[in-house]
């Protein structure tokens, strides 16, 4: 019983870690897209707006992920 519980815990931890990794990858893809838009936009305020969104996406995600990993000890 203890052995199977241990396996279950490990699997849950791995699943949570994988979920956080997927979320991180998705957020990075979104912020990359926003930066590409910021660099290619030829007029303001679209460029500034896209760059600000990209920064917020990355930094807010970083804070969320760091907190989640800290709480879950991952």
């Amino acid at each position, binding site marked *: 019983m203890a052995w199977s519980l241990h396996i279950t815990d490990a699997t849950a931890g791995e699943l949570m870690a994988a979920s956080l990794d997927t979320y991180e990858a998705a957020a990075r893809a979104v912020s990359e897209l926003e*930066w590409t838009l*910021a660099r290619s936009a030829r007029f303001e305020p679209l460029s500034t707006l896209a*760059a600000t969104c990209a920064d917020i996406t990355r930094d807010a995600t970083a804070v969320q992920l760091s907190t989640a990993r800290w709480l879950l000890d991952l």
Partner: protein
Amino acid sequence: MTAGFHTSAAGDAPAPGGRRELHWEATGEGPPVLLIMGLGLSGGAWWRTVPVLARHFRVITFDNRGVGRSHSLTYSFTTEAMADDAATVLDAAGIGEAHVYGISLGGMVAQQLALRHPERVSSLVLGATHGGGRRAVPPGDEVVDFFRRRLTLPQEEATWASVPYNYGPACRRRHAGRIAEDVAQRLAHPFPAGAYRAQLYAARLHNCLSRLSRVKAPTMIVHGRHDRLIPVKNAYLMAERMPQARLEILAQSGHLYPTEQPEVDDRIAAFMADPVPAHARR
């Protein structure tokens, strides 16, 4: 940058999105090395290390966002964001892949760079840093109290008051002149309190320990045994997660070991020149 070596190139790199300028400088010729400085200090604070590494490498230093000649529109900092900044400095310097050496907060940024942009890191040196997360060993209460109070003190008083926290007892006894040189360098490049707070926040949020095993680049971990800011146990914790890493504990040093035991820069240069020794290659 402080006198003592010749800067061969310099520029301002646009941070991701182009809303921020990051000042960088290059010295020497050879395979590229990117140096990432710690809390509140500009790239010029690498003035002891650059001449040693520049004998063999093209050494890139830069001012982290909000510090020195780099500007920031906001004080929202994370080590992830600072790692992306470092990658854009490499872009601006025309470098694809570099040896990356970060100290203290710079070591945390270097970890993020190796995780977020692994293709940019040919080897990694983590100096006086920690992997973050719940298992990181915090400094003692006295140290935490001091760094909270530090911003309320005048710059010169704060710089001198931080000496017992930054340097080990041996250096304070034997190399007061070196410490005075460091203090003079720091006072010549004061930092804005907002950027300092934001970088402190980034360091608190940093959390890479559980993912360090994913770092593929050959790694060297360097730490002073008497480090009061980031206790040496953190170096052992990181080494546990990175079994391939080379661990060098400096018996006579505190946090700022490049001042206390500058000879370590030669060993770091040797590591970068041959990060995977022939006997370890398959």
